[in-house]
């Protein structure tokens, strides 16, 4: 099987357009900043050998990283809320896992479809199965992803679709609006209708056109009534099952609202449908909204490539989302390929000077840590303190503050540019980032061992050392200002190790490293 797979990959690679073309170290490293958890000397060479398309093809075939299932209960017989083993394993995967692109895309998707242990779902065993939805659908179809997440008990619990029963007139209650609202607002359509290029659709008075109103939210709440937790093995199915986080939610027709429901774009789901029929009608209706492609694609571009994509870039990717070339809509593998190979993503490959002023995005803490560790040849133990470090930079894995994730795609810097990751870049966390670099270079992080040996072999000459560091951490391009600053820092040190540490500290705390360009 393994042999067959590798033969298949080789065939794919040979067929890929980029195969055999020469790829510069800068091009490879830039690409890997966008498509992996960070370039390493080895992965740079790999992309140079395979070409971008060849590397993509090999990555699409990989699905190797898993997160360990956790016990349901702790030793005291209560729900186990200890996510530390899952968080630690996540970072082992980011640093050493082979399926780098799948992990990056899964992480991006998980920041659109947020479930969090901060409030709502502190149950540890719910997270590995939930994560696998993104891992397994990262190169699949967006429609399948919508359905898989919608029926996942983790999301069902977090946004209350589970046990959301139809209105009860005797009790004076209404169906819960939470999932119906956020499914539209955060996961599929957004608040404002978008043109294919991501700009808002405007009415005749130049006001943005809303995607839906409150009446639609009330009706959406009814659409997603009548689902409960999966029945645990050995248990008897009930109308309202107790929490169980493996498998998919199951319908409870007696609690599904079967009235006709008018939703967005004046689409009416007919009366009398089952819970699953209503859900399938809803999925069809969602996929039919032209605003979905730019809404989803713009966010994926922001996570992988740049905070401020041009409208043309968004439009090109939206077109692929709407039709992958074979008439299929929502093909994420095609979308990811288009995002990463787009001329706007690749425009800076030639030289640092070819990056336009507003291009790039700030490395979020989880990406920052993963890249640091990969670039510093770290060995990471199954139990490690990496999560504590990202938490200190305001990004604790699986603990987003709310369903609105760690930062908003709409967050703007002081200068008015979109800069989502800047929402968690404060006067405090900026210092904490530098202090993390300090801890890594001059101290220790539990369960982590970096290896500076490759750098030490270049310590005899400032510019050779900085060239080597730039190859790994700066896409083979260092500004003259950083070159000057780092050289001054190196020259004040006496030992080779101190020179390497000083050079790395200067580079890794610099904004030109923190911002992926």
């Amino acid at each position: 099987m393994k042999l067959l797979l590798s033969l298949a990959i080789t065939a794919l690679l040979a067929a890929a357009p980029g195969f055999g073309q020469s790829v510069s170290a800068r091009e490879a490293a830039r690409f890997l900043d966008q498509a992996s958890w960070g370039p390493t000397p080895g992965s740079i060479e790999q992309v140079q050998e395979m070409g971008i398309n060849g590397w993509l093809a090999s990555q699409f075939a990989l699905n190797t990283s898993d997160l360990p299932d956790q016990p349901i209960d702790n030793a005291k017989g209560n729900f186990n809320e200890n996510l530390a083993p899952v968080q630690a394993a996540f970072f082992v995967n980011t640093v050493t896992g082979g399926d780098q692109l799948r992990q990056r895309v899964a992480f991006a998707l998980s920041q659109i479809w947020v479930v969090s242990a901060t409030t709502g779902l502190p149950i540890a065993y719910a997270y590995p199965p939930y994560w696998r939805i993104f891992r397994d659908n990262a190169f699949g179809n967006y429609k399948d992803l919508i359905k898989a997440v919608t029926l996942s008990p983790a999301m069902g619990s977090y946004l209350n679709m589970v046990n959301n029963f139809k209105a009860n007139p005797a009790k004076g209650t209404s169906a819960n609006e939470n999932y119906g609202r956020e499914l539209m607002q955060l996961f599929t359509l957004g608040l404002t209708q978008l043109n294919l290029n991501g700009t808002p659709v405007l009415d005749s008075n130049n006001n943005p056109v809303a995607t839906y109103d409150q009446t639609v939210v009330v009706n959406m709440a009814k659409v997603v009534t009548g689902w409960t937790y999966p029945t645990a093995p050995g248990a008897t199915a009930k109308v309202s099952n107790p929490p169980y986080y493996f498998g998919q939610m199951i319908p409870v027709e007696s609690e599904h609202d079967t009235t006709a429901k008018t939703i967005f774009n004046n689409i009416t789901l007919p009366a009398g449908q089952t819970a699953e029929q209503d859900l399938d009608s809803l999925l069809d209706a969602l996929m039919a909204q032209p605003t979905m492609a730019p809404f989803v694609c713009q966010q994926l571009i922001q996570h992988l490539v740049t905070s401020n994509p041009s409208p043309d870039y968004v439009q090109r990717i939206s077109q692929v989302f709407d039709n992958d070339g074979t008439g299929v809509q929502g093909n994420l593998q095609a979308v990811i390929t288009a995002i990463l190979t787009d001329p706007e993503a690749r425009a800076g490959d030639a030289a640092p000077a070819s990056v336009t002023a507003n291009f790039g995005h700030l490395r979020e803490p989880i990406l920052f840590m993963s890249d640091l560790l990969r670039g510093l040849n770290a060995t990471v133990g199954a139990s490690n303190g990496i999560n504590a470090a990202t938490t200190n930079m305001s990004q604790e894995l699986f603990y987003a503050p709310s369903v609105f994730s760690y930062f908003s795609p709409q967050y703007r810097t002081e200068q008015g540019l979109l800069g989502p990751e800047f929402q968690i870049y404060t006067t405090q966390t900026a210092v904490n980032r530098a202090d993390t670099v300090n801890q890594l270079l001059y101290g220790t992080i539990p369960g982590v061992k970096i290896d500076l040996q490759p750098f030490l072999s270049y310590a005899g000459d400032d510019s050779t050392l900085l060239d080597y560091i730039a190859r790994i951490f700066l896409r083979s391009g260092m500004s003259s200002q950083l070159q000057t600053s780092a050289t001054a820092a190196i020259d004040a040190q006496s030992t080779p190790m101190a020179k390497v540490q000083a050079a790395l500290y200067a580079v890794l705390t610099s904004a030109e490293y923190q911002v992926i360009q």
Partner: protein
Amino acid sequence: MFTRRSFIRVGSAAVGSLALRPFGLLPALAQSPGNYKALVCVFLFGGNDSNNTVIPQDSSFAQYTSIRGSLALSSSQLTASYPSIQGPPVAFHGKLPNIGSMYGSKELAVVANVGPLIQPLTQTQYQNPQDAADLPLNLFSHPDQQIAWQTSIAQGHSPTGWAGRVADYLAQAGVNSTNFPPFFSVAGNVLEGAGVSTQPVALGPGQSLQLAGFNSSASSQARLNALTSLVADGSSISLVQAADATLANSMSDANALSAALAKSTPLKTQFPATSLGAQLQQVAQIIQVQQYLGMTRQIFFCSLGGFDTHAGELETHNVLYPQLDGALSAFYAATQELGVTENVTTFTESDFSRTFQPTTTDGTDHAWGSHHLVFGGAVQGGQIFGSFPQFVLGGPNDTDVRGRWIPTISIDQYGATLCNWFGIPASALAAVFPNLANFSSSNIGFLG
């Protein structure tokens, strides 16, 4: 060097009517240690169901009990009923006992049914708007309504927060004797504190802005100098500039903050070991050393999240309200310890309140107008400002049929009342609250 001092962005058209004023022309803000004032915002993220925070104990209690069903708190789940100087007697959620006593001792007031508005709005105008632009942008959406609260510009799209614009005014009027940021967040970046000419400082509770790993040796100083010169150097890449600017601000604020905090003495007041407790303890410690920071006016921002109670609301409130009650009462005790009760006014904000009618999951959905708490020695406590809505689904205060109350007090009025006490002259309020002129009163009265 590229510091916050040299980076103050004044003189642009965006400053608007906040014209530069000569130092010393503001008697209301004349500097003396006893004249210190602080506003402390506690933002309840997720949309607190204030219908269960404070409950009128008049004839409407029967309607409350009937409509709220499984969420209705019985008398045994409430504090004692407190008489009000103005408005109906009220009881608070039973997990807010200290809030209740502060109301009883007239240190805390309730401002009823506050929310984002562009102008006064009747139910008819809401249900049949002449122009959709007359309504706040994206009502019932968490981020949009947080932004509306933080900017006080319900039309949306404001790049600055109302407290940030107050900070701009303070900076331009030279009210504080240093350029240390007037807006101080212990809860991360928030739009509320973003100004045009000033940017907030954010400090993690118990953390420091001092960079770790440096000593006075030449080799260490060379590394520090490298970093210092680099953040000042400028880059052709916009987001690199933005990241540099933030770290430059950290480095510029770090020494002043550390020097001041070094003069602090441990507070005797015990704060609860909660996130909000730690935040408010940090605020109290900054207030203790305000004279060493050179501050005459400061605005603080804290937050507590988790209020998005679509399901299981009673259980969630039973977890969150003790945290809120414990942290707020400890903070008030700390202001007593520091002798600054008259100088510090604390107030709540939240995305929105929630439907009066419950969901089938024993929770509530997103709504609009909400009741807020204001406390401090200067507050006209023991009173209800504004009025509670009529507890009738589909009644005169409802947007639809689930009890989403149309606000009767705008955030502009709430904020302007705070700012009036804070010493912001009426002439400067229009720039802070551009919609304020649409409302008949700019002072609700809870600060005299």
